[in-house]
């Protein structure tokens, strides 16, 4: 039963909130400045709540069930994080208040900078970027600024493995640099021969996702970073898959010069239906002074500590207004505090264990291009069957919906045909994983026996497959358009 648009439920004269009367003498607003009409919906509070609760029922979420969306790390979001972020002492702070009046907030940010630096092996951290792609842009601009400051403006090339997220090339061109794609070798690693062939004094750096989007840890990581450094380049780490490495390895110690952390993935702040997130960036000592500012500095004075803002000396500038997504940062801090060092390592261990367990139990029914290797936190299977030529990965995904699960990531990475990228995360129990395996096996059987079941799926969802061609051709992006 579809829910009408809020505008369709609107009736003139209804109100969902009461605004207090004016307690000061009024000053007339010049009519020339005033608008004639404003078509916002008019509903009573109860109907508003009902509308949004009904909409919420049409969503699948982590709190609904398994959400094995590859590279998105859809783990359970502890509720304590929400309580912390909503504390008035955090949520009711104005970003421009005098530092003396927000020492608690600054200390939290300073501690978090230190924690993320410690976990990733980086000298300095900027908490400003709002999301992974935002952190990437930060990192690439930092690399660019670094080479310019060393008198090497000719370093304008960024090497990007073909297994990379689409954001990597988009980010690179946004920074005014040139993308060079590097193929993967037969085992899914960066192809060293191709890499060597492209390394010269025009290379600004390499963007590396490790574990990569195939869920594989690059077997030549140290060789790769050494080669790039020997050529005078830098290595950018895409931290999207860092959940596999928490407490397992520190990228900063393996030759990664700068990297973003997706706090909304690895550190379990809720994804919010696509945002907000946080793309905090860690950097080596060499790059620290280029980070976006301000960052928080601790100053010892007469024995007691004070926290203040500091702008890195050759900062690339601001990436956003104010100080990053503070509410998200409080959640991440809370998460790290609750887990501690052992807990963080346990996160990675169980995430990788769960992924390998799924891979082992699906191998025989779904082709897994690199199934011979141990995967990290995720793996890529193929949603195609020789016995069912008409069936594609998308059909498998849609059928999973009927069986009560959120589908994996479809058609990514591009280098795998009919990709189904599966990331269970550490917060799923073996029972949940087993029932997912059951569903996947059922679908594999249905694909052969009754393919139409897949092609017409989903059958149980609020709506059936939607006509994306119509949406794009007859573009209708606001209510009341005709």
């Amino acid at each position: 039963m579809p829910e009408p648009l809020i505008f369709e439920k609107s009736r003139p004269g209804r109100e969902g909130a009461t605004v207090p009367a004016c307690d000061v003498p009024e000053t007339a607003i010049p009519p020339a400045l005033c608008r004639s009409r404003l078509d916002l919906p008019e509903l009573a509070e109860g109907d508003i709540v009902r509308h949004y609760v009904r909409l919420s029922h049409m969503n699948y979420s982590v709190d609904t069930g398994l959400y094995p969306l590859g590279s998105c790390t859809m783990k359970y979001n502890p509720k304590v994080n929400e309580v912390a972020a909503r504390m008035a002492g955090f949520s009711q702070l104005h970003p421009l208040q005098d530092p003396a009046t927000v020492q608690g907030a600054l200390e939290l940010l300073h501690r978090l900078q230190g924690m993320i630096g410690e976990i990733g092996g980086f000298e300095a951290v900027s908490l400003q970027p709002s999301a992974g792609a935002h952190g990437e842009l930060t990192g690439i601009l930092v690399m660019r600024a670094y080479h310019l400051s060393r008198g090497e403006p000719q370093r304008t090339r960024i090497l990007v493995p073909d297994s990379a997220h689409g954001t990597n090339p988009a980010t690179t061109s946004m920074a005014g640099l040139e993308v060079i794609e590097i193929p993967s070798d037969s085992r899914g690693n960066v192809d060293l021969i191709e890499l060597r062939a492209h390394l010269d004094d025009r290379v600004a750096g390499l963007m590396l996702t490790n574990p990569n989007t195939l869920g594989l840890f690059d077997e030549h990581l140290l060789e790769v970073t050494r080669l790039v450094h020997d050529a005078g380049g830098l290595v950018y780490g895409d931290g999207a898959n860092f959940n596999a490495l928490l407490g397992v390895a520190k990228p900063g110690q393996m030759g990664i010069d700068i990297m973003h952390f997706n706090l909304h993935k690895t550190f379990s702040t809720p994804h919010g239906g696509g945002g907000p997130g946080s793309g905090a960036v860690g950097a080596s000592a060499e790059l620290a002074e280029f980070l976006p500012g301000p960052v928080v500095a601790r100053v010892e004075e007469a024995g007691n500590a004070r926290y203040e803002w500091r702008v890195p000396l050759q900062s690339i500038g601001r990436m956003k207004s104010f100080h990053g997504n503070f509410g998200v940062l409080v959640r991440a801090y809370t998460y790290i505090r609750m887990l501690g060092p052992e807990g963080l390592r346990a996160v990675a261990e169980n995430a990788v264990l769960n992924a390998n367990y799924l891979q082992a139990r699906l191998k025989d029914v779904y082709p897994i291009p690199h199934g011979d290797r141990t995967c990290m936190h995720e793996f890529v299977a193929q949603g195609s069957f020789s016995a069912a030529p008409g069936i594609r990965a998308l059909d498998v995904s849609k059928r999973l919906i009927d069986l009560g699960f959120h589908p994996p990531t479809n058609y990514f990475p591009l280098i795998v045909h009919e990709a189904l990228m599966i990331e269970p995360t550490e917060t799923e129990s073996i029972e949940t994983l087993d029932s997912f395996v059951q569903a996947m096996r059922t679908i594999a059987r249905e694909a052969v026996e009754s393919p139409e079941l897949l092609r017409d799926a989903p059958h149980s969802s609020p709506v059936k497959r939607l006509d994306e061609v119509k949406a794009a051709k007859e573009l209708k992006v606001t209510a009341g358009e005709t």
Partner: protein
Amino acid sequence: MEYRVDEKVRYAKTHEWVRIEGAEAVIGISDHAQDKLSDVVFVELPAVGATLVAGNSCMVIESVKAAEEVFAPVTGIVTGRNEKLDKNPELVNKDPFGEGWLLRVKLSKPAEAEGLMDPGAYRKFMETV
């Protein structure tokens, strides 16, 4: 599957076709190209008067899931564009060699067209890809 090949046009390796009409030529994409692209939702045509250089990207055709560049098969000046595509981009899918044509150009190097594949050669070429 079997793709239609128009006998009266010549083809580029990037699956564009050219029909020579005197000093001018009509340009479109082949049946094979439109099928690979799937449902076309938007065609971004260059302005009349724009210069095309053989081999260079001259426009973009978008489906829901892809944005494919069209490479100019010949060099010339755009003299006409298929305005119908603005409202009905699906013509590129329905009738790639007819109603789904893209551009009309004044050839600056008429000889170039000779370098393109004839229908027979294009059939063979498609088997290789």
